[in-house]
């Protein structure tokens, strides 16, 4: 990548202000006009001294994921940072506190682990903070100031972010933090910089549009709000809770209604109830909640009621690893529940996609009268990216409803499979919907012909969804035409796939990548074309079985190479790259 591409990793224990320092750093970088991708990892426990890492990648050109190597590691706690020294690239920097409070055992200092090609900077954050503010609490901000000074970043931008961050606190808090920052900054000025990390200036867009920084969940909230959400029902569960928390703030200001229900069954039940009554309604949950919702989703399919379900996956099965990421609920999202119950499932691959999918989910749910699941995972829900907000609201307002004809056939067997819909309150539209199989009028029926016709209708009506305007349901990247290696991916992992694909291309490997955003119904024609173009198709994903691999190879009847990884952490670019290299060597050997 030309231009600036620097990844910072700040590592400490809970209570060191690690995440706070990372937050100020990424916000300042975004404010300056850089592109930012950032992801924090923190322990599951609320209290204690678990490890926190904040990784911030700052670029001038579009990046797609974090890098597997960082350029700079800043340690606020050596015991936690030592295992991460290895992720710093050669000629990168390791910055640490050379006078930590506790006496560390032999080998307990991060400095003892720095490799010869990595460049160390020992700074006494603690005493600098003491001198500047009268206590050591500002140690993380001193460290941040040092980092800013070392790489020549403008201090004023940081001052502004610091002031924003502490806006609700007394002025003295902001002042003390600015003093700590300045002291760290000054300490860096006299330092002889040894590493080769360079921060070029940010590129500004020709149209002057300013990027904002958002998480995947934040983008979901914006998408739901811009699409005019009327009702939200939810039950707290990591990593989806922040969606409900933000909607609780925003919806009442705009006439929407947010209700915290007694469980996920009632959340989806009320979402579907509100959908039946004509509202744009949504709920959000994670895997365990989706499991509870399965029966209701079936009702939504059978009774043809619009609803939107946001699912942010985490480590499973069962309670699993609530604060770790995983992509293991694809099967449940696509197939979960009783009977032949096809629904629409969307899996955005980046923060911008979260915004689009969440908003368009309402349109799809209404147009196709069905539940729509938007599948994220913890890594996508919580990672920050800079995005350019759309100039105009891209979403369509609610579709008109109303009975048609002298006899209102709510489930009329039309060519498209979509039937006219009326909502309670509309005259002439009185009807009853049910989870029982029913005839065109909605009356229970278990006649064989009727069941066959109604099942076919419920499948048929979803087919055009794969070509829905304004929605990227599937997309190919990199070389067009015949290639040796195709990499197929979905969800949060696709950023790493793209990074690996571009690196492989640079190495001369013939490859290209395809993302599947619509997992149900699958855009089969595009997938067929991709498979026809690739000698082998590799499917990297964050689960144990290879769920997308099974879905696609089962649907197309074609072989795939699986790369399933379920460690709880995001996929590593170098792991995908190694597999691509191996496959490339294999195909080359086979061709000889």
């Amino acid at each position, binding site marked *: 990548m030309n231009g600036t591409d620097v990844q910072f990793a700040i590592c400490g224990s809970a209570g060191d202000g690690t995440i706070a320092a990372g937050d100020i750093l990424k916000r300042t970088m975004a404010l300056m006009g850089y592109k930012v991708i950032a992801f924090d990892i923190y322990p599951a426990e609320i209290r204690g001294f678990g490890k926190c890492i904040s990784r911030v990648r700052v670029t001038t050109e579009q990046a797609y994921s974090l890098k597997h190597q960082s350029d700079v590691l800043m340690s606020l706690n050596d015991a936690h940072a030592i295992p991460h020294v290895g992720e710093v690239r050669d000629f990168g920097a390791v910055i640490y506190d050379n006078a930590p409070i506790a006496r560390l055992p032999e080998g307990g200092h991060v400095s003892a682990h720095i490799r010869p090609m990595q460049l160390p900077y020992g700074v006494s954050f603690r005493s600098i903070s003491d001198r500047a503010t009268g206590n050591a609490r500002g140690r993380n901000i001193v460290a941040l100031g040092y980092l800013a000074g070392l790489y020549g970043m403008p201090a004023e931008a940081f001052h502004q972010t610091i002031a*924003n961050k502490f*806006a*609700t606190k007394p002025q003295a808090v902001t002042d003390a933090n600015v003093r700590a920052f300045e002291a760290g900054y000054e300490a860096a000025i006299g330092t002889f910089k040894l590493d080769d990390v360079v921060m070029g200036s940010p590129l500004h867009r020709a149209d002057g549009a300013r990027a*904002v*920084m*958002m*998480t995947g969940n*934040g983008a979901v909230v914006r998408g739901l709000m811009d699409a005019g959400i*009327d*009702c939200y*029902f939810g039950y707290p569960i990591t990593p989806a809770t922040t969606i409900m928390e*933000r909607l609780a*703030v*925003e919806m*009442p*200001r705009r*006439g929407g*209604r947010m*209700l915290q*229900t*007694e*469980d996920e*069954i*009632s*959340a989806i*039940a*009320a*979402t*579907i*109830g*509100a*959908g*039946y*009554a*004509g*509202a744009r*309604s949504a709920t959000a949950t994670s895997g365990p909640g989706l499991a509870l919702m399965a*029966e*209701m989703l079936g*009702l939504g399919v059978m*009774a043809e009621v619009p609803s939107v379900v946001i699912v942010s996956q985490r480590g499973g099965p069962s309670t699993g690893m609530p604060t770790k990421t995983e992509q293991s609920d694809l099967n449940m999202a696509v197939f979960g529940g009783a009977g032949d119950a096809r629904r629409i499932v969307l899996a955005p691959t980046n923060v911008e996609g979260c915004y689009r999918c969440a908003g368009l989910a309402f349109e799809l749910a209404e147009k196709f009268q069905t539940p729509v699941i938007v599948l994220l995972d913890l890594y996508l829900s919580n990672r*920050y990216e800079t995005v350019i907000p759309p100039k105009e609201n891209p979403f369509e307002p609610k579709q008109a409803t109303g009975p048609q004809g002298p006899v209102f056939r709510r489930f009329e067997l039309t060519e498209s499979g979509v039937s006219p819909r009326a909502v*309670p*309150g*509309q*005259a*002439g*539209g*009185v*009807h*009853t*919907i*049910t*989870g*029982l199989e029913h005839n065109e009028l909605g*009356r*229970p029926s278990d006649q064989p012909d009727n069941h066959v016709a109604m099942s076919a209708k419920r499948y048929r009506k979803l087919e055009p969804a794969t070509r829905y305007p304004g929605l990227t349901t599937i997309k190919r990247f990199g070389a067009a035409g015949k290639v040796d290696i195709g990499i197929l991916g979905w969800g949060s992992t696709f950023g790493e796939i793209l990074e690996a694909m571009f690196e492989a291309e640079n190495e001369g490997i013939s490859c290209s990548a395809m993302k599947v955003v619509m997992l149900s119904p699958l855009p089969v024609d595009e997938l067929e074309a991709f498979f026809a173009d690739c000698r082998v198709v590799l499917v990297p994903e964050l689960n144990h079985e290879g769920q997308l691999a099974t879905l696609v190879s089962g649907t197309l009847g074609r072989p795939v190479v699986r790369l399933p990884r379920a460690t709880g952490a995001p996929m590593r670019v170098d792991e995908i790259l190694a597999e691509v290299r191996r496959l490339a060597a294999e195909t080359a050997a086979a061709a000889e």
Partner: protein
Amino acid sequence: MNELLKPVYLEEKLEEIRADGHQDYRSRSLPTWCPGCGYFSMAEGFTLALKKLGRSAEEVVVVSGIGCASRFPFFVNTYGFHTLHGRTLPVATGVKQANDALTVVAVGGDGDAFAIGGGHIPHAARRNVDITYLVFDNGIYGLTKGQTSPTSVLGFRTSTSPYENGDEPLNPLMMLLAYRASWVGQAYAGHPHHLADMIAEAIAHRGFSYLHILSPCVTFDKTTRTYRNLNMQVRDLPSGYDRTDLAAAMGEAMKVDHPALGVFYEESRPTLADVMDETARKAGLSPVPAGGE
């Protein structure tokens, strides 16, 4: 001539029924219940109540679960949602949240309400969702052909309690009072006119109203909750009864051997919609909190 001896012609009788208007609320589907089932009184009572309240059919939504009682929406000519076993209340809550103007009536059996759906009742009651919940309690699972329910009496022999039920039955009225339902009443399928009045009153109440309806399952219960037994057991609430006295209501609810018919308890407090409006008002007054991403 003696009134009773006057011949009644079907056509004339039908004309009379049509003219009355309450049949407008009935759908063209005939109920599929067993002849003699207590549920017929609900179809009649409900339509009479809507007539009395003058609600138009399209502004009424009946939400039900699964069971014989829950088949109800198919037999009335209002909007209806026949949902899942036990999920009546949360679906009804969603309908009401979407549109305050609708009259929402939730209907279910004792199993639907107190076994599989028991977890939802306290929350609908405490939030005071402005809906009416009609539970038809026959002390048995009718639709699945006669298994023990949470309100089956001790000693009742069913297909799943072949050696007699030994589980203490629930007391729904005490539960609903404890959950702070803002209107709690009891009616009996064998007294259809009283039932119709009670349904009308329950619907007219602003807030969560719970009407418990004792209803015989003539097919699967020949021994306990029969018309014959209930006719002997039911009674009126004592004269001078104060329906705003929660402790008195609890006392009456405890007398399970002689169930009282009438309004046990009534109070006026903010509904869920009121709370939502108040929240919107408070939100409008406070500054935009940070963290919009």
